[in-house]
């Protein structure tokens, strides 16, 4: 089931168009990473999903509810965490959670249990009685996450949730998100820390200047950008046969040798055929030291897209 469905979304601010005809659908249980530079249109898209911004046009539904026509239904199933952590400075941590527990109309008998649970999840139990104004930026960020988790939303929209978090908290955040996804919750997340996105996102989309450049599972996106995989071979001692052996193999293209013991080449075949190449080289008594794929990561993909190498 598609939990988030965006069709032809356009967002204008005066004469400036922040989002151009963006279409996207995200399945239940997915963790979708929304990647883009500052001003790309990520926050505008998130605000439309969160009913905070009226789109110029386009159909946007969350959990089957139209954000423009059924905002209160959307609010019940949506947890939204903005990219900066405003808190009520004069409230205590538990009072802050209590406010949103009541505001979401959650049963009062579950109040203590739920607040304790989210504070524990976000490692804020010890700060329960502290005033929000006295928390560090990272702690405020965690408190916001706790508040977002309180209502156990079906859809979570997290705008730069890891900014301001220390490495330990980032790992904790990743684990929390994975756990939430395993419970069937859909997560849409934006982050500048691209390597982290790769660790837990099931799909990604790259947005630039308001346009969605690529979207899909990480594998699909990499395939879109780099249709042929690049393999690297390193041998112990130079052997003039290697280049010829590789070129003779079906599907191998563009064999290059940056040094006498190193070769790289493009290959369009599947994993089983990759294994056959290695077996063939070894069978010909080539002293192979290493044989691996030069795999693009999310950062490479993003850099390629933002350099305009992908349309």
């Amino acid at each position, binding site marked *: 089931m598609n939990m988030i469905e965006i069709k032809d979304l356009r967002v*204008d601010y005066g004469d400036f168009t922040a989002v151009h005809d963006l279409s996207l659908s995200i399945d239940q249980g997915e963790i979708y990473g929304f990647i883009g530079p500052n001003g790309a249109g990520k926050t505008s898209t998130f605000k439309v999903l*969160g009913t905070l911004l009226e789109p110029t046009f386009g159909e946007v539904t969350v959990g089957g509810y139209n954000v423009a026509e059924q905002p209160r239904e959307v609010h019940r199933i949506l947890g939204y965490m903005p990219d900066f952590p405003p808190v009520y400075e004069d409230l205590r941590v538990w009072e802050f959670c209590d406010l*949103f527990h*009541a505001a979401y109309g959650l049963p009062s008998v579950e109040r203590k249990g739920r607040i304790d649970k989210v504070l524990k999840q976000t490692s804020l139990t010890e700060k329960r009685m502290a005033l929000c104004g006295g928390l560090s930026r990272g702690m405020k960020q965690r408190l916001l996450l706790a508040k977002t988790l309180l209502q156990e939303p079906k859809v979570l929209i997290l705008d730069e949730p890891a900014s301001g978090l220390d490495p330990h908290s980032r790992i904790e955040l990743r684990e929390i998100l994975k756990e939430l996804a395993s419970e069937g919750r859909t997560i849409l997340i934006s982050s500048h820390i691209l390597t982290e996105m790769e660790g837990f996102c099931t799909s990604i989309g790259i947005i630039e200047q308001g346009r969605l450049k690529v979207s899909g599972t990480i594998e699909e996106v990499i395939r879109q950008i780099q249709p042929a995989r690049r393999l690297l071979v390193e041998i112990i001692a130079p052997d003039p046969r290697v280049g010829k052996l590789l070129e003779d193999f079906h599907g191998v293209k563009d064999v290059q040798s940056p040094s006498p013991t190193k070769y790289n080449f493009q290959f369009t075949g599947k994993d089983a055929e990759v294994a056959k190449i290695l077996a063939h080289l070894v069978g010909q008594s080539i002293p192979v030291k290493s044989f691996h794929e030069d795999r693009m990561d999310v950062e490479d993909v993003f850099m390629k897209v933002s350099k305009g190498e992908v349309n």
Partner: protein
Amino acid sequence: MKKLSKKVLGDLLWKNPILRMQMRQRLRPRALIIWGLITFIPCLFIFLNVYNSASFSPYEDSGEARILALKATFIPMLIAQGIILMFLGTGSVAGGMAEEKESGLLDYQRLTPMSPMAKIVGYLLGLPCREYLLLALTLPFTLISAIGGQLPLGKVILLYTIFLCVALVYHLTAMVAGMLARKPRKASWFARIMVVLLNVFLPALSQMGLTVFGHITIMPTLWGLMHSELGKDIDEEFLKLWEVVPFFSWELPPALFSFVVLGFLMVIFLFILLRKWQQDSNHSLTKRFALFVFAVLQFLMIGSLLPHLSKEMDTYLFLKEMFPLNDGLAGAILFLHLVLSLATTILLIHLVTPLRHTLAKGIRRIRKLNMAKVPSNWDAAGSLPTTLGFIGMATVVHILLLASVIQETDNGIQAQAYQLAMPITLFAFMAFYTHAARTIWPTAGFFGFLALLWILPELTGLTLAAFTQKEEPLLYFGVTNPIHALFYTISISFKELTSFFGREVRTGVGEQLSTVTFLSLAFHGGLAVLFLAMATKWKRSLQMNAANIETRKK
């Protein structure tokens, strides 16, 4: 039914999370004790001081001296309570709302599934909760004053009910300011300007016959209900203004009239807040609601003005002293109606006219939805039909006032029919070009244009008049100013008003007045035609642009 109302009240009041949150934040014991002492000690000081001063009366040693002294403490305590609730409370609301908006906390609240009304009530009562508590601290003084001073408790309760309603209106004003302004400081200034407007400028209009505006404050109820009880030595003529409210042919109690006027203001502010809660980019008012507001204002205006024209009703009016003949009073009342109608029209046009990007958004949306034109209830719809509605309503009320003037004036009006039609025609011209200018320009451009057009030539005229010691420059440059222009077109039918012109002008008043009247009509009429044409052309080019975008996309 009982259960339902209990649930609704619970959601709005005692179970309201926003109200509870604000109370937690603002009623922390340490701050509360400090504020309590800051409030209680000066109030005690004022109370005892006034009591002691008033005790030295000719009735010394009699029980009456103490009663009079306690009565004397009533008003000072009311003033202190006014400062707490209306000055400090209004500041808390405006500042609190703007801060939450700026920090993004308001967006959190937007995202909760609470009803918008519960959110509004939560902030309305929660932000000034400390001030309400401080008010409660001063109430024992009022009770001592009322009971010891033998004031009728029924009247005191009624007075305090109006007092709370006035405070709620001020707090709603501040909430609107906080929601509309982008920065807390701006909100605070906006709220202060609004409070000054509601407190000083508009009530001053009640002296001019628009009784309705006096009831935005507590003053009419205070004087109307309490003056006889407090035994104050106040001018009888002044008190006449507050004892009853002449409205059409009725004489209404001031408290009832205050409830109606304050209720109307509350409805307007609540409507704006609901719209802004739903979506920050919404216009403050819908076009239909703006028409409703204009209609109610016209109704309140005609109801307040008609009794002053009637020979059967004995009303007090400052204007009656200025114009001993009926002729001038009638003209002044017509003038007042048109000036206020114009001010309301400009404000409402400003609120409901879509700006360029809203219009473009609407055009793109209807193209997407395959609609022929923007529905009239959308914010993106043009405001020309609404402007026509304003003009229509103002015309009806103007004609009704004119009919009453013709019927009630002693010697009849020495004017031609076309002369009587001039003022409302001029009003229509001004409304048209105001609408067109607002369509073309955003806020700064729009108000800049009006200032340049209406104030700069007036200033030039004043300067030249000062140098030449003649009033002609002011008279002719005044053609561009709507107040002057409306005054000319009305003066031509009501000769008593011409006494306002200077001596030199008055010598040849007939000729000069005709000239400037026709000049006014020609100038503003020309502007109306020019600007309507410009707005039409501008809208067409906008539609073309939107169409081009669509074509490129396909």
